[in-house]
Every structure is written in structure tokens, then in C-alpha cells.
């Protein structure tokens, strides 16, 4: 009998996994894929906006100037001024720094804590695994944003407790993901071989499990980063996150909202617009990273 594979091995499209490393594949994808190029470009522009504007823009995000309050966008204030005469452009830029930095910290924190929990639960098994997973179930029993609300209400409102709440919400995503990866990788032949040769558990985790988990972890973190920005703005909008006068985007929308119906739309619209394009671009990049690193779609989406 002639099996298909007897004559021709299946030829997948595109380069073989060995041909280019992961970083190479991402770099190539960014160059060739417009769907990835545009959001990456948008994110780069937002980064530049966040960190370059303060180096040359003379206005300060906190300087009040009641005489020129509620000015519409003009040459000297391209995004207008708010009710206290503060320059909206400077504030949106400051808001971008806050959102990006806090979201980055939240993502890293959630990934490290959740990742460590998942790795140990998956590697140790038994009672530690059971306890850790029950705790994760308890966290997952809440709608995400509502648990984050509870944390800020309980521990006192503010940017740091809001960040803590969002990070807590994301812990089970990583824990579950890395636990199942650890279980899967642990049963791969080469890891079993390493174990048979006397490698310790921690060595196996460090040498074999962690490197293999990196792609799924990257995918999850990319998605969680966008969520963190959105959740932070949501909490600030209802007064649980950043407090007045911090120019966090969500808080700025709250402040500006009352003026939208009297015609001063720019106070709320500019931060909202930046929020929107940042999160949209992030989620597009996250999706593309998923397609590149995980073409089979083998991991559960949030």
C-alpha cells in the first residue's frame, strides 16, 4: 500500500520551524504582514508620544492657568485645555506613561506570580497543586473587573491598589496555563529521560519546562497587557483607580465627561481616543503574536 507520507512528506506552507528562530519569525512577520505592521507602528508612535513629548513640550500636565481654562484645541494647546486651564496634550502624554508603565508592571507581576504558582502546581502535583488550583477557582469565580473593584474598595482606592487588583485577577490565567504546560512538558520523552538520569525537579523546571513555556506565556501576556490598560481606565473612571489630579486616561474621561454636553468635548475625547487606539492596537498585536507563535491554537483563549 502506498501511504501518502510514503511518497511525499506533507509540506507545510512557509518556513519550517527550524529555518528561522521565533524572533526571526516575528521580525519577518512584522515586515511582511500589514495587519501586524500597522498596530506595531501605532504602538511605537504611542510610546514616542508618551516618552518624547515631555522632553520638548513646554506645558506641564499639572500647571493650572484659570484664565485660559476650557480653551478649544489651538496652536498653543493642540488638544485644548481643561477646566483648570491645564494643557490636555501634556496630560494625555502623562496618562500614556501611567497607563503603559502600570500595565507593564501589572502584566509582569501577574505573570511572575501566576507563572510560579502554575509551574510548581504542575510539577509538584498532589496537595500543593490541589490547594493552588482551588484558590485560582475562587479568583475565577468573580467577573474579572468586579474582583479588581473589590480589591481597591477593600484595600483603599488608588492607583497601586487598582494595579494590585488587576494583577490578582490575571494570576489564574497564567497559573492554569503554565500548570497545563508543565504537565504536558513533564511527560515529554526528553524530560522523562532527564528525570531518569537523576536531574532534580527544580533543574527540570529551569532547564526544560520554563523555556518551553515562553511562547504561551508571551501570548498570554500580550493579551493581558491590553486588558490591564482597559481595566485600569475603567477603575479610574469610577473613582477607584488613579485619583484627582493624576492625569490617568480613565480619570480624565470622568473629569471631562461633564463638559462634553456643554461643548468642551476635547477634555474627555482625547484621552478616550488614545485609550481606544492603544488597547485596539495591543489586542491586534496579541492576536498576531498568537498566530505566529501558536499556529495550531493549542492554548485556551481568555
Amino acid at each position, binding site marked *: 500500500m502506498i501511504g501518502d507520507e510514503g511518497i511525499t512528506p506533507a509540506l507545510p506552507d512557509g518556513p519550517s520551524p527550524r529555518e528561522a528562530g521565533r524572533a526571526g519569525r516575528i521580525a519577518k512577520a512584522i515586515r511582511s504582514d500589514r495587519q501586524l505592521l500597522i498596530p506595531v507602528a501605532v504602538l511605537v508612535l504611542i510610546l514616542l508620544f508618551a516618552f518624547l513629548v515631555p522632553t520638548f513640550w513646554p506645558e506641564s500636565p499639572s500647571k493650572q492657568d484659570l484664565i485660559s481654562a476650557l480653551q478649544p484645541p489651538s496652536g498653543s494647546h493642540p488638544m485644548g485645555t481643561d477646566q483648570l486651564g491645564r494643557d490636555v496634550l501634556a496630560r494625555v502624554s502623562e496618562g500614556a506613561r501611567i497607563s503603559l508603565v502600570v500595565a507593564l508592571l501589572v502584566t509582569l507581576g501577574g505573570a511572575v506570580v501566576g507563572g510560579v504558582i502554575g509551574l510548581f502546581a504542575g510539577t509538584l502535583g498532589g496537595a500543593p497543586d490541589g490547594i493552588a488550583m482551588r484558590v485560582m477557582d475562587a479568583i475565577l469565580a468573580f*467577573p474579572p473587573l468586579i474582583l479588581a473593584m473589590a480589591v481597591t*474598595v477593600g484595600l483603599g482606592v488608588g492607583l497601586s491598589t487598582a494595579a494590585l487588583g488587576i494583577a490578582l485577577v490575571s494570576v489564574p490565567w497564567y497559573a492554569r496555563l503554565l500548570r497545563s504546560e508543565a504537565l504536558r512538558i513533564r511527560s515529554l520523552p526528553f524530560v522523562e529521560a532527564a528525570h531518569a538520569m537523576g536531574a532534580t525537579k527544580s533543574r527540570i523546571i529551569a532547564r526544560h519546562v520554563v523555556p518551553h513555556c515562553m511562547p504561551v506565556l508571551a501570548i498570554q501576556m500580550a493579551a493581558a497587557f491590553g486588558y490591564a490598560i482597559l481595566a485600569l481606565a475603567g477603575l479610574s473612571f469610577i473613582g477607584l483607580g488613579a485619583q484627582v489630579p493624576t492625569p490617568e486616561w480613565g480619570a480624565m*474621561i470622568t473629569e471631562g465627561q461633564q463638559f*462634553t454636553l456643554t461643548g468642551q468635548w476635547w477634555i474627555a*475625547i482625547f484621552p478616550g481616543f488614545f485609550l481606544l487606539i492603544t488597547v*485596539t492596537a495591543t489586542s491586534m498585536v496579541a492576536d498576531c503574536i498568537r498566530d505566529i507563535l501558536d499556529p495550531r491554537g493549542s492554548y485556551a483563549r481568555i
Partner: protein
Amino acid sequence: MARVIVYRILGSIAAVFGASLLAFLIMRALPGDPARVILGPLASPKALVEVRHELGLDKSLFVQYWDYITSFLSGNWGYSYTLNAPVKSLFVERFPATIELALFSFIFTMATAIALALLSTYRRRPVTDGVVRGASYLGFGTPPFFLGVLLLIIFFKSLHWLPGPEGRLGIGAEAPPSATGLYPIDALLAGDLSTFWESIRHLILPSIALGVASFSFIVRLLRANLLEVSREPFLIVARGKGLARWTAFRRHALPNAFLPTLTTAGLVLGEFLAGSVLVERVFDWPGIGSLVYEAIVKQDFAIVQAFVLFSALMFVAVNLIVDLLYAAIDPRVRIPAVTAT
């Protein structure tokens, strides 16, 4: 099968138990002194002791937790000091407005999501598909509260097409006689078409804002499912039987693609619960969301605590129901395979 159901139910009970413990720890045990929070920084020491006793804070944590969970389950959700009313009666009073908005939003966004997912997959025109995918990304990136503000600027402030942030009906308008608590339905039952129309007009913008996140992931999931199912050989077989394109698609692709979207019901509910807090205040909608928002602003934590636990309970319950429903609908789960005869 029965075993699976029992395990699933037990798992849900364990999750609710864990969640209540977590909520208790976060909101009661960790914050330091709830009595101080309730009474504010200027309260006298005597008043603090009294409130502490009233709240049972002088008892051990175990007893406190037991009191907390039993009183919640027995319907005692605490007392709102700012509104001078039991939390539960406040919730009951605000519930219809939230349900009305959520229901309308659900129907509206689901219909749109399904239509767009079909549009992008059925004919597979790259342009339509690109637009739909773009819309779903934008939907994910758009914060619901900001969309609310944006919609008000466009459709109320600039175009004057739809009413502004004035709640369920115009200011001074009389609510229809209450039968269901949902204004459009009550108005219809009373035969009051103008009130019906007014309430629908007031629902449109908040519904869009509330539903945008659910819309975006339903579109995305449904589109992916439809694409996957439409590559299935059984669709070619159905076409090979002589069925028209749409008939084959409707009979065989749609049911198989819709079934997995059931599992997102929990996600959708979560979005609606959290979204109500974000969106209702933008439109001055008198539901539970704005109640919670006001409670946050006034630091009336009994309301927030009740809302958090209530949300977790609903969330777990809906996820459980979806799982059981899925098992009841999908024959592959409902009827175990019998190999060989």
C-alpha cells in the same frame, strides 16, 4: 453522565465558597477597620466601638466569616448608611432598570454580532471580512464608558437624534403602570405607544455602550467557529446531496458553530455586571450599577460588598447552567458513544 453533573455542581459550590472567603478576606479582614471607614475619620471612639460590635468585628475571624456568609444567604445583605435602607431592598428596587438595559443590550448586540459574523463568513468576501474583523478589534479596544460619552456627543449633543443622559424616560415623564418592571413591556401592556417609543429611544445608546465588549468577542468567536465549521467535510457532503448553499450552511454549519458560543455566556454576564457600573452613570440610568457607583463615591461599602458577592454568585451560577445546558444539547456529551454493535 450523572457523575459529571454532580462533580460539576460540587465544583461550583466549592468555587462559591472560595469566592466568598476571598471576598471576605479582601473586603472585611484586610482593610483594617471597617467601622472607621463607615463612620469616617471624625468619629468618636465610643461610636467606633459600637459599630464594631454591631458589625461583629470584635468576634474571631471564623465567627465573622460564618456570620457574613449565613446572613448573605439568608437575605440579610447589610444596611446602607448613606441611603438609610437595607441593601437588599435597594437592590430589588434598582433591579428592573438594570435588567431592562441588560436584556435590551443583549438582544441588540447579539443580533448585530450574529449578523456580522454571518456576513463575514458566508460569502467570504475579503473586504466585508476585513471590516467585520476591524470592528471586532475596535469593539474590544473601546472602553464601554468612553463609547457612552462618545455616543452622547454624536447622537445627542450634535445630531439631536436620541435623548441625553436622563435615565429611562424623559425628565418628568410618568412611568407606565408596573407589571414586569420593564418599561417598554409595561408600556406595551398598557397600550401606551408613545411611552414605549420613548423608553426604546432612551435604551439605544446605553445598550450599545454596554454591549460593545460582548459584541466584539461574540463576533470573533462566531466568525472563527463558522470558518472552522465551513471547512468541515460534512458541509461538502451536505452540498453533495444537492442542498443549496444557504440551506447546507443553515442546517449544518450554524448549529455546529453556535453550540460553542454558549460557553461565553459567563463572559458576557461578567461584562454586563461590571459594565453596568461603568455605563449606567454615564447615562444616569437608575439601576444597580449606578447604585454601586454612588456607593463607591460615598464609601458606602455595604452596598459594594453585597454587589461583589452577588456578582460572583451569578457568575458561577451562569457558568454552571451553561455547562449543564451544553451537556443537554450536544448529543456527543448527552449520549455516550457505544462502540460496535
